[in-house]
């Protein structure tokens, strides 16, 4: 790494489309050598933010610095150092993955071996298939390969695993982990909370163009969750009946169909009460946790909306 200080700095960023602010005062930074996930639902402003970091858009107000430089003014200096994965497209429809990757490799001074990269991402069997005939997942992986082939200091990945089957998704996750191990800074966007939890050193949760929470996955899932018990079972349980069996002062609610929250100071006694009540009625508990919430719960608690919608 060259400069100390953040690899990406976004300060009070505002971006408008037709007068409407899609990014509305966003501030965060990505530390060098770490993985930062921008987590939020579709339309939260993730792509707009990343494309501003990539220099495709100029901020309406606020400031963006990438590796200490201005993404638009210093575009030429940044281009070799920043690997970009667009959300879609970016490849000639008639080109084959091997030749496209070789082309991008030829634009860099010390690229990775394209053939090996194709193999790592399980694209070797379609290396000579025209891009237009590739599946969505194969296209995504080629786009990921194009982002890393030039051995950049920073990669910006916009929805790197959208549309991938589970196996390909794991391959993409492995790639992100390998990049991190080798000292590459990764900024990725996702609306999959398990992905953010799995990969990110730091998660920035955004909604309607604003940062609503940020921290490590552990911080986000534990803070504010003290004294709460969450469990997943079949939807539509009789909560009045459950409440009568709970220690005094605890409330039970169904926050999403099949997802239940017991709050008001839940402890080991509450845990025992819930499992006893469920066992007596033949209710199967799929998952249960105390003093802990998922990133999905965090998002729901903060915005009142479901991340998946």
């Amino acid at each position, binding site marked *: 790494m060259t400069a100390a200080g953040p690899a990406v700095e976004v300060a009070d960023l505002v971006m408008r489309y037709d007068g409407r602010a899609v990014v509305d005062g966003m501030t965060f930074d990505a530390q060098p050598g770490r993985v930062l996930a921008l987590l939020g639902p579709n339309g939260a402003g993730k792509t707009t933010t990343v494309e501003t970091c990539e220099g495709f858009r100029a901020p309406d107000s606020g400031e963006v610095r990438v590796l200490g430089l201005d993404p638009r003014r210093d575009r030429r200096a940044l281009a070799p150092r920043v690997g*970009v994965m667009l959300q879609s497209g970016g490849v000639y429809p008639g080109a084959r993955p091997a030749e496209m990757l070789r082309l991008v490799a030829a634009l860099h001074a010390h690229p990775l071996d394209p053939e090996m990269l194709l193999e790592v991402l399980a694209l070797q069997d379609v290396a000579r298939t025209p891009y237009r005939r590739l599946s969505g997942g194969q296209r995504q992986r080629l786009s990921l390969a194009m982002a890393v082939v030039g051995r950049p*200091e920073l990669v910006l990945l916009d929805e790197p695993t959208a549309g991938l089957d589970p196996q390909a998704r794991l391959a993409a996750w492995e790639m992100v982990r390998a990049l991190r191990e080798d000292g*590459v800074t990764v900024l990725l966007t996702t609306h999959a909370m398990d992905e953010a939890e799995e990969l990110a050193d730091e998660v920035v949760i955004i909604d309607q163009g604003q940062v609503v929470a940020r921290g490590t996955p552990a911080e986000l899932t534990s803070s504010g969750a003290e004294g709460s018990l969450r469990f997943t079972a079949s939807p539509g349980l009789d909560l009045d009946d459950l409440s009568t069996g709970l220690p005094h002062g605890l409330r039970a609610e169904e926050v999403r169909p099949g997802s239940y929250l017991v709050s008001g100071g839940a402890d080991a006694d509450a845990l025992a009460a819930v499992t006893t009540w469920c066992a007596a009625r033949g209710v199967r508990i799929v998952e249960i946790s105390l003093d802990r919430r998922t990133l999905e719960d965090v998002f729901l608690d903060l915005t009142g909306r479901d991340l998946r919608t």
Partner: protein
Amino acid sequence: MSRLDHSPRAGAAPVARMLRAQTVMELRLTLRRGESLLLTMVIPIVLLAFFASVDLLETGADDPLDFLVPGVLALAVMSTSMTGLAIATGFERSYGVLKRLGASPLPRGVLLTAKTLGVLVVESLQTVLLCGVGLALGWRPSGGVRAAGATVVLVLLGTACFCGIGLLMAGTLRAEATLAAANGLYLVLLLLGGVLFPLSQLPGPLRAVGEVLPTAALSDGLRAALADSGSLSARPVAVLAVWAVVSLGLASVTFRWE
């Protein structure tokens, strides 16, 4: 399999390597597209062979080939540098290829140079093929080396102005609209460009329009160079130069990369 080493080692490649890689890509893609080969290679050859053998149109020349070969050469230049370039570039824009390349170390100037080189290589192939077919049919150009030199100058000027028109369309219209406009303009310029029959056979107003269009300037200029004295006539050169400056200027101002 050994693990890849991702440790950062960023840097742009030397310009020569970038230019070579991008030019090879442009050429491969062009030569792979069936519809573009139809437009740039097959149609001009078929037109030349057909009209040379049936003598359907009154060309006004002693030998119809003296009229047809330069006209079809002009058509070939137009098909590659205007229609082919416009369609390919329009789709590259709509598929985000230009956007992605804009985030790569490839400078825009190198991309445009690669595209130009790609066009010139295809035009060289077209010229060799069409002249070969012409010679086989009995075409006997005059003017020698001077004619060849004049031809190169005219083809380069024509290429510049048709590239300008093509990029003007590709950089402003949607890809589908570019496809339609580029083919439509190809047909109009074929009919009003003195390619297969002289402009003098057109009614007055149409002839007046045709005379200021670049296709007629190119075909007439090539005809004068190859059939007559081997000289470069001033009027076609002037018409092509004006079109080149205006179209390339407009294209560079209006071109949108996304």
